[in-house]
């Protein structure tokens, strides 16, 4: 499967290359939710897939909070509020759970068309849109938090502070 990597942050690009193997299929069936490691405020599953972390007192990781904002800026307009879906676009809170992470990234980056006699569904490609690509992991972890039931609807409350590593990665990606 070819992927357009030009707009992806470097850590994400490395993970994408890593996944093009048979073990990726098994990894998708493994636990895609539980955070197993933490790298400077970003959480990953045992297989290195980005995921959310919500502490017992309700404090969530920065990226999940950021994903709430970025989702509503870029995705809400078709997919409805909080990943819940619209009259024509699927509920992404379910897509984030049902789909393999790399498939999810592929659809957002490259788009997807379902045009036939009975439907006109076109997901645009966001690969050249820094407002989406620089926050794709944030959006993904937010949707997983919603889809897994860990995060109810509504504006997220307590969050971890934005780490310097996250701030730096954002600046590098946006080119500011």
């Amino acid at each position: 499967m070819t992927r357009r990597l030009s707009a992806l942050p470097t850590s994400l690009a490395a993970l994408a290359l890593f996944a093009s193997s048979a073990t990726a299929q098994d990894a998708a069936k493994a636990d895609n939710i539980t955070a197993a490691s933490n790298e400077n405020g970003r959480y990953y599953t045992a297989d290195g897939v980005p995921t959310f972390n919500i502490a017992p007192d309700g404090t969530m990781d920065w990226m999940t909070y950021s994903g709430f904002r970025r989702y509503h800026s870029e995705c809400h307009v078709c997919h409805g509020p909080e990943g819940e879906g619209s009259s024509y676009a699927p509920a992404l809170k379910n897509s984030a759970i049902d789909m393999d992470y790399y498939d999810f990234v592929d659809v957002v980056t490259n788009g997807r068309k379902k045009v036939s006699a009975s439907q006109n569904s076109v997901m645009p490609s966001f690969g050249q849109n820094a407002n989406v690509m620089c926050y794709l992991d944030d959006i993904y972890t937010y949707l997983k938090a919603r889809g897994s039931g860990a995060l109810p609807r509504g504006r997220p409350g307590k969050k971890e502070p934005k780490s310097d590593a996250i701030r730096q990665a954002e600046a590098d990606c946006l080119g500011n």
Partner: protein
Amino acid sequence: MKRLLTLLAVLTIGGSQVAFANPDLQKIIDDPNQWAIQTGDYANQRYSKLDQINKGNVGKMQVAWTFSTGVLRGHEGSPLVIGDMMYVHSPFPNTVFALDLSKEGQIVWKYEPKQDADVIPVMCCDTVNRGVAYADGKIFLHQADTTVVALDAKTGKVVWSVKNGDPKKGETNTATVLPVKDKIIVGISGGEFGVRGSVTAYAMADGKLLWRGYSMGPDSDTLIDPEKTTHLGKPVGADSGLNTWEGDQWKIGGGTTWGWYSYDAEENLIYYGSGNPSTWNPSQRPGDNRWSMTIFARDADTGVAKWVYQMTPHDEWDYDGINEMILTEQDMDGKARKLLTHFDRNGFGYTLDRVSGELLVAEKYDPAVNWATEVVMDPKSDQYGRPQVVAQYSTEQNGEDVNSTGICPAALGTKDQQPAAYSPKTQLFYVPTNHVCMDYEPFRVSYTAGQPYVGATLSMYPAPGSHGGMGNFIAWDGKEGKIKWSLPEKFSVWSGALATAGDVVFYGTLEGYLKAVDSETGKELYRFKTPSGIIGNVMTYTHGGKQYVAVLSGVGGWAGIGLAAGLTNPNEGLGAVGGYAALSDYTALGGTLTVFSLPN
């Protein structure tokens, strides 16, 4: 503060016989048996003189026939009926059907444009289209991909075709077109994609581009005369569409023109409103951002603006100014005046003198509106005509990355494009409204051609402390600036209203009900659940001596996006169970025309 209209008599001129108008079209518009233009008439009153169906018998109305468009997305607009022919349109791919009513709706011709499906994701809010227009034996359609076509009304063959914009830059179309004299006036969509809005005139005969007036930019682009074009009675001065912007921001300024247009043949002026400035993050575009959020009066022949009025300078809430401009004639202080009434997204109902652009009334038409206290009406004040913004609800004053809470109305406005109706009999406006508030958090975004350029996070919820539903259908008394009656609805009312001489007012609900109510009291007289939520406009016509009422069903539009999953009030805290009703619990996608009549 409050300026009341003292009226002695009410006259309405739905479309006067004037030498300059397109006389053939005017004749059909004046015939209540036909529905020749999307807005009912040039005045946008959506009023029919037909009274065979009236408040005494509408309770017995039944479905006479139905027609499926074959498309499943939001169905806005309505059919046209010219003689024996009914013209029905669809959302993308914008199929047009010509049905012969004398042959039980047989499809005489079908126009199926071939459009690149890549235009779909650059249409911000569903792939709606507000319908075709008719003039000079031709049907005019402005497609999603901005192709404007003229079709032979008898055969459906393409007579001419031009491209009005470029979807690669985010330019698309959802609106109908206005046939005026020998011209077709068209708008453009894409305010959420950094598109610079404009209105363009093409020759009806061959599609030649005659003039184009942008919503911002130098005077040569905006077709504004620094000395003759006025704003609240004063000349606007040079380059008003430039010097109210920082740097080059005007080039991606928004101010798109996707709403309804009206026309006064005697003044030869077309009236319309412009949409939000681009981006939704106000800090990225300092200045008043003229002429976004503006009511325009343009000369139909030259496009030059005679007057303008900006309702929401330096918008901070996405209150597009594109709603319909309803033209009426009423007496004020003993003088007959030509008026324009506009129910804006921002929650204020405006009445202006449509000849001079003088501001006469600006009152809230939903008590929940809170982002501004009032619009200053004193011509001597330096704040004349400006809304007085409440700091707590100013998304700019609260700042980027700050969540401004409890702003009413939400971005979708107290009323969106769904058009109101006016009855000269009751002298009331019948207005389909939204009753929704929002939290709004702006943040920095960068611009890429053809990509969304939004820059804000919104949460929407029903107005707190109210009936709990998301909409009202109201009767508004423009003389007193007051709500006469208000029918609460579970969901925003997203259909166009129709008022008739039979003392009935029709509207459609998002669950799919076509409703008929008494025009004086608002009492419900009839309801029928059509196959899908209604966001189309109710219209009426006769055939074979019998009156019919018709409406398109097919849920979608912004309502299908924002309301499908239901809303929750974030201020109730995390874990608020249940939230508010989800539209997806009441209806699914559809695409049907339902036509009603009295039983035989």
